[in-house]
């Protein structure tokens, strides 16, 4: 029997302000009477729907916010952390769900932030670069420590964040959806690292919505629902349906449904488009009622392709035809009017206005359509937003809640809701289910299927192969900024096959 090193009992947390203090007079609880413990050298998986309170619980362990009620024991002693630094000093590292890096610093500076290597009075840049490079290489990542973090892709940034936390000597490492923006090969590397850590007696709290991962690395699974502790099961007893029903409170049907019919009409046709000066031209098409998957490794240029189509990036020659009409270079607003939308992979920078309310964000892309006379009808807006909340099961206190305070997955749902409200005819979805729980995922898949049945064309960029395989009628695989393969036969839709084209 392994030793329990961290234990949390009867934790309750009310909704809080920017200082982590409960709002005055509030009775809304994010966490209620939650129990959680971590044993030595284990990977403890924490699952739950979006907004179940996983990240909030982790923030308490990480010293970001205090618990309002309940106690936390480290090595059997009651402990409270006044700040993240204290938590770190006790050997608890935290890889946040949202990226927490200084974009204007380089990789090494980010990794060493707060404990720079020094030579007398000055920082010792040379040794920081060497150390950082070694660290990255040891973990199997080839990133130049001198690059500005701003110039890295989301996935690379995630890796820097992981490496940064790993570089501290921690006994417990919290990983809040570390794989949400990674592709297969990075995930494999990460898992190898996790196994390594566990072998060295380090415990890991692991949060993920990707169920296929859990069995591979988890030792125990704890389920939260609506801010309450539901239960903990050993991985030997792992049963997909059981976990789901613990999470959702009911059974879930088949994940992927396909009721749509591909039609002949070509909605999007890209001819000879080059996303960079020195890449091969791209040709692809999407038909009405068709779901086309776009797969590839990180940095394959899928996002660039999506953005090029959506007029938010310059490209280098080629034609983009929508219903036979050239739409290259059009402003996003015109495209949205025509029914073309692009759901960005980066919800923080491009998807949401985090400082505005949920309602404002949901209607943002439909303002012109909803209020052609520019006068906002607040009542109607509220109704519409509420409908979206119900439809996508967004967990929020009210339609006025500021998106900043929504859980990561719920933020993603807000983005999805925003785009669905525009009545699109061509959807370009870039990682549409990033950070979304299984239940919501299946909802979104259902919606995608429904839309396709109504004749909407869908181009889905995703790094989750099961999703690509389960949803697509056709798959393109991208490599180094160009299309490497087109898979039309559903029998070819297997992970190994797709992966082989990406390498």
């Amino acid at each position: 029997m392994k030793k329990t090193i961290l234990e949390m009992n009867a934790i309750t947390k009310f909704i809080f302000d920017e200082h982590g203090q409960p709002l005055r007079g509030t009775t809304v609880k994010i966490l209620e009477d939650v129990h959680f413990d971590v044993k030595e050298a284990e990977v403890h998986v924490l699952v739950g729907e979006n907004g179940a309170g996983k990240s909030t619980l982790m923030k308490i362990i990480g010293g970001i916010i205090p618990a309002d009620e309940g106690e936390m024991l480290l090595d059997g002693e009651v402990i409270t952390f006044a700040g993240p630094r204290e938590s770190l000093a006790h050997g608890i590292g935290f890889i946040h769900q949202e990226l927490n890096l200084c974009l204007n610093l380089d990789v090494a500076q980010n990794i060493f932030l707060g404990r720079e290597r020094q030579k007398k009075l000055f920082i010792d840049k040379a040794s920081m670069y060497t150390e950082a490079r070694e660290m990255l290489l040891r973990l199997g990542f080839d990133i130049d420590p001198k690059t500005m973090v701003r110039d890295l892709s989301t996935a690379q940034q995630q890796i820097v964040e992981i490496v940064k936390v790993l570089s501290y000597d921690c006994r417990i490492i919290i990983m809040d959806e570390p794989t949400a923006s990674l592709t297969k090969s990075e995930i494999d590397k990460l898992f190898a690292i996790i196994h390594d850590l566990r072998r060295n007696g380090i415990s890991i709290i692991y949060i993920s919505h990707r169920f296929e991962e859990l069995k591979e690395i988890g030792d125990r699974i704890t389920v939260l629902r609506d801010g309450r502790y539901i239960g903990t099961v050993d991985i030997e007893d792992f049963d997909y349906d059981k976990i789901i029903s613990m999470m959702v409170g009911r059974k879930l049907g088949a994940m992927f449904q396909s009721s749509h019919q591909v039609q002949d009409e070509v909605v999007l046709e890209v001819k000879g488009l080059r996303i960079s000066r020195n890449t091969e031209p791209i040709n692809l098409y999407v038909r009405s009622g068709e779901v086309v998957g776009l797969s590839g490794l990180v940095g394959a240029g899928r996002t660039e392709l999506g953005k090029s189509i959506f007029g938010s990036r310059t490209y280098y020659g080629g034609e983009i035809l929508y219903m036979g009409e050239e739409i290259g270079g059009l402003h996003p607003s015109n495209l949205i009017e025509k029914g073309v939308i692009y759901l960005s992979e980066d919800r923080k920078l491009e998807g949401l206005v985090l400082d505005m309310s949920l309602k404002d964000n949901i209607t943002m892309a439909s303002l012109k359509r909803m209020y052609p006379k520019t006068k906002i009808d607040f009542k109607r807006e509220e109704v519409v937003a509420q409908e979206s909340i119900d439809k996508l099961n967004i967990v929020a206190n009210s339609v006025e809640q500021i998106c900043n305070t929504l859980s990561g997955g719920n933020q993603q749902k807000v983005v999805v809701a925003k785009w669905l409200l525009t009545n699109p005819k061509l959807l370009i979805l870039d990682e549409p289910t990033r950070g979304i729980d299984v239940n919501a995922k299946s909802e979104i898949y259902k919606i995608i299927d429904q839309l396709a049945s109504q004749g909407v064309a869908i181009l889905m960029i995703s790094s989750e192969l099961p999703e690509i395989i389960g949803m697509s009628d056709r798959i393109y695989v991208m490599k180094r900024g160009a299309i490497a393969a087109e898979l039309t036969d559903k029998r070819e839709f297997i992970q190994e096959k797709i992966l082989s084209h990406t390498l």
Partner: protein
Amino acid sequence: MSTTQLLFSEKVRRFVKRNGSVVIFLILAIIASIFVKNFFALNNFLTIIKQAAIPIIACLGITLVLMTGGIDLSLGYTLGLCSITVGLLVKGVGLPIWLSIFITLLVGLLVGFINGILVQVVKVPAFIVTLGTGYIIFGIAQIVSSGSDINRLPANFRAIGVTNIFGLNTTVLISLIICVVMYYLLHHSTFGRSLSAFGFNAKAARMSGIKTERLNISVYMICSFLVAIAAILLTIRVNCAQPTMGGGVYTFEVITGAIIGGASLFGGIGTVIGSVFGVLTIKVLENCINLLNVSYYTYQAFQGIVILLAIIFENVKNRRL
């Protein structure tokens, strides 16, 4: 967790939180009523309102610009240029009044258009663009006027701003109308919503189908347009057209009004009520300083300290609320 109904007290709390300048204003006004002789008098209030009416117009303009995360340092100089323009046209050239006003407003729009284009298309930070155009506009105003002013303006021109209707003069009424229009624009129209979105996150706003380019330029145009209106009214009020009307000091006073009103220099946030009461707060303060005949050397210091105290108070209060 379900959608909670907003209680009345919650609404009040939100209002106070969002419109801190109203609270600052009320506190200041109450203190002044108690301690400053001659402050609490209808006539004095009317004086303050008249003095505030024009800067309020300019302040609403700059509020829009601040909401985009920009700034307009040329505001005071634009005011001077428009002042001398309208003065010259009305008295110097002798154009019909409506035409003079029309041309002056066009000048305002043009200035805003140039600012907007430089910010949006050439991508120079607003701070620098408007610092630069401020110099240029001032130079032009000086050249146009050859450095001198035009006073004793025609009575029929002045009538536009100084006629009394229902006990308030037309300047105040015009200002009021502009406040109402701006209130609608900012808080009830898609324009205001788009503006906030753009100010908070330009990229996301653009990719959500907001024509951010057009929005950005139009904001500078509206600002300068409002400044042109303010210039005409101020020229009428002072009965003198001159290129030094306004200037850098004026710009900062107006921006301070907006900031007291809760507008953020980083964009996204700004309200009409906030800005209106921000300006009123400053004007009440200046009024008190004059009424108390505070030593002229402590004028600045006094004004500064009171504003700071007010804002400290406001911030502390916000934490408690």
